[in-house]
Structures are given as C-alpha cells and as structure tokens.
C-alpha cells in the first residue's frame, strides 16, 4: 500500500469518499474525487456590510426581526425548543421561525452538549449557512461542558470551535430564558455587533486547528459550502 493511502487510512476517510476510477454505463472510464467534486472548499471571506450605514442599519433591523432558526437538537436542550412553537410561548410573535435546512436559516441554536462526533455535523451545518449567521449556545454544556466537563468524548467550550454570539446559561434553561436570550441577540444584531461569520472567516485557521485537534476522522474539506 502506498504512503498516501496509508495516510488516508489513518485519518479515516471512508471508502465512498476516496478518489477512484469509475466506468460509466457507456463504457467510458472517468475519475471521481468526491471530496473535490461534491464540495466547494473555497475559504470563507470577510464580507463587509452595505456601504451606506443607514442601509446596513435597516438590514440589521430586518435580520433581528426575522430570525430563522436551525435547531440542532444534540441534548436535552432540544426539548426546551418545542414549547416555543406551541401556544404557551409562541415565539412566532417575535419574528422567530424554524427552518428545516441550514441554507435558509440564519440562527444556529446548539442545544446542549456536543460529542466530538456531533461537533463534526455541527461544523458542516454551520458552514452551509449564509453570511451573516448567528450561533446561540444553549445550556451550561456549551459554556464549560456542564455536567459533562470531564467526559472523554464531549467538547467543553463551544466558543473555541464556532463563534458564539449569545450563551443562555442553565441546566436546562427554561423557554422564558430562551426568549430572553433571543431578545438579547436581537439587541446585538441591531447594534451591528453580531459579525460571527466574519469572525469565523478572519480567524479561520485558529478555528480549524481547534476543530481538527478534537476531530480525528476528518473526512471532509476544510470548508464546505
């Protein structure tokens, strides 16, 4: 086995992601390299806001009043999201809606502890969202590991892997705390300080180094759109 193959084996690239020669139904052979064919791995760039300040203020106001949530139900926190959709708390009143796909969402709610395996999915989902995008860390687990602080398999500070805008402390925080957190996020967005996506692009190497330190089976491009 060649050295490169050994290397790939070591970092655990799955078989279906390997570069290979495929024979098409018409008998023509062609090369398939899933990692570069299926993903765009261009580095993220810092995107400045609109040139005119007043326009950017309008946009920020619109962004704050139209938070589309991608809920990542990793732990018990996911349970606290459901009451927000139902009559008792009804977060739709505040312009907060749930979208099922990362492409359309602009607020990523990481609800609870992240195992290393889940972190990988979280990073991929986050990178598929469009700039500007915001991250809310829900519960103590995202702040310092919470009750999982000495676990061998969970990360402790979410902030080291993704730029977090607002933490909502608690184990678990009640839906009222979530609403308060979203209101705080709205204030930050309106003030023009929620530039997490640009922060991620600026400190891309630092974030990637942190991510790769814990994720050992890195079988995706460095940045996948």
């Amino acid at each position, binding site marked *: 086995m060649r050295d490169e193959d050994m290397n790939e084996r070591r970092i655990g690239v799955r078989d279906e992601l390997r570069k290979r020669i495929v024979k098409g139904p018409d008998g023509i052979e062609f090369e398939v390299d899933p990692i570069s064919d299926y993903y765009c791995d261009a580095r993220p760039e810092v995107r400045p*806001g609109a040139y005119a300040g007043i326009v950017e203020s309008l*946009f920020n106001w619109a962004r704050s009043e139209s938070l589309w949530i991608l809920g990542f139900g990793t732990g018990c926190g996911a349970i606290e999201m459901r009451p927000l959709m139902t009559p008792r708390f009804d977060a739709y*009143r505040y312009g907060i809606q749930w979208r099922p*796909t990362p492409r*359309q969402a602009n607020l990523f709610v990481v609800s609870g502890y992240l195992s290393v395996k889940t972190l990988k999915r979280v990073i991929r989902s986050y990178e598929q969202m*469009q700039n500007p995008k915001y991250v809310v860390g829900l519960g103590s687990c995202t702040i310092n590991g919470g009750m999982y602080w000495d676990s061998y398999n969970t990360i402790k500070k979410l902030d080291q892997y993704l730029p977090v805008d607002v933490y909502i402390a608690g184990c678990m925080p009640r839906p009222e705390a979530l609403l308060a957190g979203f209101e705080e996020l709205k204030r930050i967005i309106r003030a023009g300080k929620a530039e997490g996506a640009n922060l991620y692009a600026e400190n891309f190497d630092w974030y990637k180094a942190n991510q790769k330190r814990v994720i050992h089976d890195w079988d995706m491009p460095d940045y996948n759109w």
Partner: protein
Amino acid sequence: MTFDWMKIPYALLTLIIVVNYGLLLTALVQKIAARAGRRHGIPIWQNYIDLVKNYALRTSISHGVMYYLGPVFRLTGGVGLLLFVPSLYGSEMFSNLSFAGDLILALYFVFFGTLGMALGAGESGHPYSAIGVSRGLSQVTAAELPLALAVFSVALQYQTLSVTDIVAAQQGGITNWTLFTNPLAVTAAMFSFLGSMMRPPFDVVLAPQEIPIGPPTEYHSSYLALMQTNRALFPVAKMVIYMNLFFGGATSWPIFFLKIFLIYMVSALVGVVFPRFRVEQSIRWFLVWAVPVGVLAILVV
C-alpha cells in the same frame, strides 16, 4: 391593430397592488391558522421583513444555470398568470393585457412555474429536493385534471375562450355566477384548488418535518426571496382566475380583496381541519372524487 402603451404601466400597478395584498394576505391566513391552534402567530408585516432579510444576505451560492433560473421561472409563472387575465372587470386601468384567447394561456401559466421549479430544484442535487419534485409533479398533474375539465366546461357553457367575456356573461346579479349556473364545474375546480394551494391535506410536497422542505431545500438568500415573492403573488393570481371564471369577477378593488380572501379561506379552513395526505392518497382522491365531477360537468353542459 394598435397597442395602447399605457396598458403596461397600468399592468405594473396591478402587479404592485397584488404583490402587497398577497404578502399581507398570506400572513393573515397564517395568523388565522395559528389562531386555530390557539397561537397568535407571526406579525402581519412579517413577510416584508423576511423578504428584506433574505435580499440582504451577504453570500449566496449557485448550483448551476437551471438552479438560478428555477425561481425566475417560478416568478414568471405568477406574474404572467396575473398580467394576462383582467383583475377588475370593466376597468380600463386594471384589465391588464388580457386578450381573446387568454384562458388557454392562463392554464399554461398555472403549470409553468411548477415545471421551472422542478428543473431548478433538480439541479440543486439535494435528495429531498428530488423527492419533493417527484411528489409535487405527480400531485399537481392529478390536481390539474379536474381544473382543466372545469375550464373546458365553462368555455363550452359560454362559448368563448376569453376571460373578459366569461366575466361579462356573469354580470347582473349573484344568480348569474357560474357557481349557480354550472355548480358541477365549480365543485371540480374547487377540489383542484385545494390541491394546488400547498396547504394541508395536500402539502406533502413541502412536508416540513418530513422531507425538510422539499424542492426549495437548497434555496437561500435572493433565490429564496424571489420564491417568497411568488408565494405571495401566485395564489392571488390563481384566485383571480377562479374569481373571474366562477364567482362573477370583481368590479372594484374592495370587492376584489373580499372575494380573494373568501376563496383563500376555503383552502385555509380545509387546511386547519384535515391532516396531510400521502401522495398516492391525494392522487387517488383527485381521481375518485374530483375528476368524475369534472367529466360530469362537461357532459351536462
């Protein structure tokens, strides 16, 4: 034959009025549906904010030419449908670009956006898009049959293919409406209407919580904003056809707004009461209940 160029700005004015009305109407219907679930629901102006937000996103990525054209085709379907039928009967300003054979063109435009969307969503390469598209096309095809039959029935009844003439024939009292002169055709068309409004029980195409959101899974930022504009515009444009063909048309904007709202409420009320059909169930439902009524409508006429 001379063309009155003033028609174009007038038609654009109609477009602006209808887009704004559609944005408010869809939010209102969402609020009503939320009330049925004992919620307050979104603010009435939420659709505008969502639009601004989506246009203001700083990045967007494309999956190719058809992906780019999908929302454009979709919006073209909505705009075309609206522009080629008269929105107000007897009004020089708001009869738009209607002409003698516009009924056939309208039928074509109803389907046009769906096809464009199918091509665009197909190129995005997301498996959920493909599932949504296959479900959508089969369901829309089944739902389109009774509508086509009803439209032929109405065309036979009035011996014309011009929407303006059909509205003219219904003037002079509520009993002149097609609703009362040809109830079978209206029943068949209303069954089809339920199927094309993307509300339960026929919302398996988008099916939130199941195949995340179906065809538009990969769409975002301004692509999505175009489609949202169409989501506001297209139902109203479609209901303008229904209003003109079956419910006597409208002679002023207040009547127009009221009739459109009431027609929309038919699908909204059915939607909050009934759970979702699977695709094969909905197709069977259309073939068993709606198509025979349509055939009967043609036979009776």
